[in-house]
């Protein structure tokens, strides 16, 4: 899945942690921002590049639910009370609705062609629609520079609305 023609109008989804958490903003003052660029840079948990899901196979709601399921699975195996406490804090109320409405989680939709155009290889998708945009953090910082520089929300990346994030149906 590496040619641009194959990826036209194919979108991928990625979770977007809250960028306007009140406790952070209040603590920091007006000029601090949590940049959206973090969303399109591989995280330490991204093992083989940037982990994303095909929008046509995974709904925004499912993508957020995956985080809840993952935390609940970690909780079941938590070895210490400290770890358990940390996971419970991360879990919050443990519903997609509360993640979106109370905590400010969102999902971003990105055209796959954006990565192909910038020279990234794309892995094959698994049966859940998961795939990796292959590259190191440095590759992403350098090749997507034009995207980062322009504004907080690059034009090609759509931050889905609250309502869209709660949708349980897949899009195109």
């Amino acid at each position: 899945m590496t040619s641009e023609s194959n990826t036209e109008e194919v979108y991928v989804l990625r979770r977007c942690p809250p960028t306007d958490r009140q406790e952070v903003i209040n603590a920091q003052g007006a000029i601090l921002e949590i940049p959206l660029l973090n969303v399109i840079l591989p995280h330490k948990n991204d093992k083989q590049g940037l982990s994303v899901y095909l929008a046509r196979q995974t709904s925004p709601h499912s993508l957020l639910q995956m985080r809840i399921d993952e935390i609940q699975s970690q909780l079941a195996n938590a070895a210490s009370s400290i770890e358990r406490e940390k996971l419970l804090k991360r879990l919050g109320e443990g519903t997609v609705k509360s993640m979106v409405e109370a905590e400010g989680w969102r999902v971003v939709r990105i055209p796959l062609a954006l990565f192909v155009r910038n020279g990234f290889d794309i892995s094959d998708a698994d049966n859940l629609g998961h795939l990796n945009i292959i590259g190191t953090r440095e590759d992403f910082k350098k090749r997507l520079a034009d995207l980062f520089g322009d504004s907080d929300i690059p034009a090609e990346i759509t931050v889905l609305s609250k309502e869209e994030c709660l949708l349980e149906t897949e899009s195109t």
Partner: protein
Amino acid sequence: MVEKVFGTIQRLTLLEPDWDGEDAPAISPKCLKQAQEIVHGITKYLNKQTLPYPFPIPSVGPTNAEGVFLRWYLMETVFLVIIEPNEIMLQKKQRAKCADVFCLPLEQSIAYLAQSFSELGER
């Protein structure tokens, strides 16, 4: 004004590990120090110049890999600096043009930014 920026950078230490809910580490003290040195270095340089605008205040934020980002909007140019433990990456982007991207050591990063700001001020 510069103290305010320093304060904002310092406050990034308040972000505990997992501040993004995706297991992001705390911000590296080395990156915080480098961010402050960049702001300090630019101020020191620009104080010797006569600029037609006040000292530009950057946006400050955390990166999810222990780093700090600084972003300045000057005229129609955006300067983005991503300071992470293994490198300092600078990006200069002018509207409708491709971004210039490069990695420089700390001292050269300061010199590059200070000179760029100064040149923009002279136009």
